[in-house]
């Protein structure tokens, strides 16, 4: 029996144990439902409320071309427009007082108030300019909008818009969610297995290294399925947001290179964290009473540090975070979305991450080999370090 076969059987077992396809489908259906409701609500709101009709009482106004407002004169026998308002023919009745101020009579809170204010502000400004004797040509020139063409000294900075920052934030979120999903499964898979006394049967059949590598691989795959499901769900929500509120997809995040890097770094980052937590879990008998429970919050540290990349993706600290294995899995994809790290940086970061995964798996295997039969007493940190480096073994 080969090491690879043992790892495969273990990984397949853990995957089958923790991935519940029915639950995945239910969560996807929930995403679809929420998106459908959102898009449907936007559709209904668009159909019934896009154009606001206002009765004008004794004033003259031209509706803008975008169709948002429709102005109708109040009837002779309904000079304030209150009758039309009561009948629901119009959403508001606009009149002007002697001091020049406008008065909008409504039956409910006008959500279009700010848009109407902009329009009326424009009208009043135009009246005042006309009253000052400026010619129509001069007036047109005065009112013509000023063109501002933004150019970046570094073209990659052009990518640091709102949607790119959202995409970069999603990189952190995806990593964090994946780590915590995997963490929950690892604790069940390792500590729970110790409590069930299954481990001894398993390690009599395969090597401890194959055992831990299989667990790490299987649980990584489990977390990837959950995260993949989440990403599909978020894409559905984003599509609904695009329809409902004009959300723009971040083009920088949709480049194939970025997607590939994100996938590779998510997988490697997960393997690294899972190997680390597998080693911790191998020394814990009961996660609820263990003093090591505080270590479970460790993955939050790189996430907090990665916020520095969001603030300034080209700062030295961002470059260091993109290279350091414990932080590179969220930091490098973020830099790729927001900046241009270059092939050398990506290569170095990848090599360091791969090396860290390998070393961490070996250490986890050693610690597991010695700690797995330990029930009750938890080993101290110096003991764990000695185990990880001890060549003699059990």
């Amino acid at each position, binding site marked *: *029996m080969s090491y690879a076969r*043992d790892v495969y*059987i273990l990984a397949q*077992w853990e995957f089958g*144990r923790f991935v519940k396809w029915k639950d995945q489908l239910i969560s996807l259906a929930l995403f679809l439902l929420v998106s459908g409701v959102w898009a449907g609500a936007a559709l209904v709101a668009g159909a019934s409320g896009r154009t606001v009709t206002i009765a004008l009482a004794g004033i003259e106004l031209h509706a803008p071309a975008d169709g948002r407002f429709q102005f109708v004169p109040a009837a002779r026998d309904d000079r304030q427009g209150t009758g039309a308002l009561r009948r629901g023919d119009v959403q508001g009745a606009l009149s002007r007082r002697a001091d020049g101020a406008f008065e909008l009579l409504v039956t409910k809170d006008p959500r279009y108030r700010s848009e109407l204010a902009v329009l009326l502000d424009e009208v009043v400004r135009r009246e005042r300019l006309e009253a000052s004797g400026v010619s129509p040509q001069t007036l047109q020139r005065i009112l013509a909008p000023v063109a501002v063409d933004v150019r970046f000294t570094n073209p990659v900075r052009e990518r640091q818009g709102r949607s790119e920052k959202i995409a970069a934030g999603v990189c952190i979120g995806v990593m964090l969610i994946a780590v915590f999903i995997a963490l929950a499964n690892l604790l069940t898979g390792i500590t729970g*297995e110790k409590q*069930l*006394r*299954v481990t*001894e*049967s*398993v*390690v*009599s*059949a*395969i090597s401890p290294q194959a055992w831990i590598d299989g667990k790490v691989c299987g649980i990584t795959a489990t977390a990837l399925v959950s995260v993949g499901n989440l990403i599909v769900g978020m894409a559905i929500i984003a599509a609904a947001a695009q329809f409902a509120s004009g959300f723009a997809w971040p083009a920088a995040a949709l480049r194939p290179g970025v997607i590939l890097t994100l996938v590779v770094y998510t997988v490697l980052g997960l393997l690294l964290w899972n190997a680390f937590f597998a080693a911790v879990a191998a020394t814990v008998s009961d996660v609820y009473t263990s003093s090591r429970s505080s270590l479970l919050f460790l993955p939050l540290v790189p996430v907090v540090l990665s916020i520095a990349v969001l603030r300034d993706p080209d700062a030295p600290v961002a470059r260091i975070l993109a290279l350091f294995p414990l932080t590179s899995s969220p930091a490098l994809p973020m830099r790729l979305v927001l900046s241009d790290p270059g092939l050398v940086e990506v290569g170095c970061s990848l090599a360091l991450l791969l090396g860290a995964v390998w070393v961490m798996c070996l250490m986890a295997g050693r610690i597991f080999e010695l700690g797995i*039969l330990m*029930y009750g007493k938890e080993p101290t940190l110096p003991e764990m370090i000695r185990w990880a480096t001890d060549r*003699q*073994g*059990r």
Partner: protein
Amino acid sequence: MDGAFLRAHGVSKRFSGHVAAERLSFEVRRGEVFALLGPNGAGKTTTVRMLVGIIRPDEGRIEVLAEGAARDRLRPDRTGYLPEDRGLYQEIPILRSLVYFGRLRGLDGREAGRRACGWLERMSLLDRKNDRLDALSKGNQQRVQFIGALLHRPALAILDEPFSGLDPLSQEFFLDLVRDLRNAGTTILLSSHQMDLVERVADRVLLLNHGREVLSGSIGELHGRLDGRPRLRVTLERAADAGVLRADDDVEDVAGDGPDLRVTLRAGARTPQFLARLVTRVPLTAIGTDAPRLHDVFIRAVRDDEARIAGRTS
């Protein structure tokens, strides 16, 4: 039985200064039932774990001879192991767990499933194959754990405390199972503190105490250690008369509570004279000779061993 399956050469293991096994040397022969016997803490489980390869000896080595060329580890696909701390996945269907354990021992999934169903049928559990393990009674859970250890038809089955926690009917079931396995050619190494059960199936035993070998040999040889000491089973009319027996000069040991007693006479004591004396002193209900028991051999050997150590240290 022909030749050794495995040999332990002076293996020792210490945990934090405590000696769990000390220079143990023994061999397990092909096709036999070999038993490690001893009280709790004697070092049986540590020895078994060293044999299986879960822990490494601090000293000595284990030599596996079964496959022709000598190796230092048992092959997982040729070895079945039922640990003392046994357990299976409680929340997973029984058949799925068994197939998993079969695959870990080298079977392909389909073959593991076929064999698991065969074993479940033999254990009258086939209709429960898709139940969770925790839906079964404790005895039935033990049956499933046995299947997990034997599914891949190992050449060597290592069973650590296989009879503990079983009711008498289940004990008989598993004794028969061990006999069947031996008859089918499987070499069996079992550890137990239940000597009365072990002596019914074992061919040879190794008695351990405090990690050390106390005695070893075939059951017949060990029974022979008590030769010269006649043993009787005596049932008193009044349990209170046991003191009279204990005070007799020819009596070495009286075991048992209540009116039913096992009496061991000193070496050289003459049984007819003892009985003649006894019936005049104590009213008896029944009397008979007692077959030698491994339990007595063990008790005597441990006492001798501890007396020897005490003499050495004082």
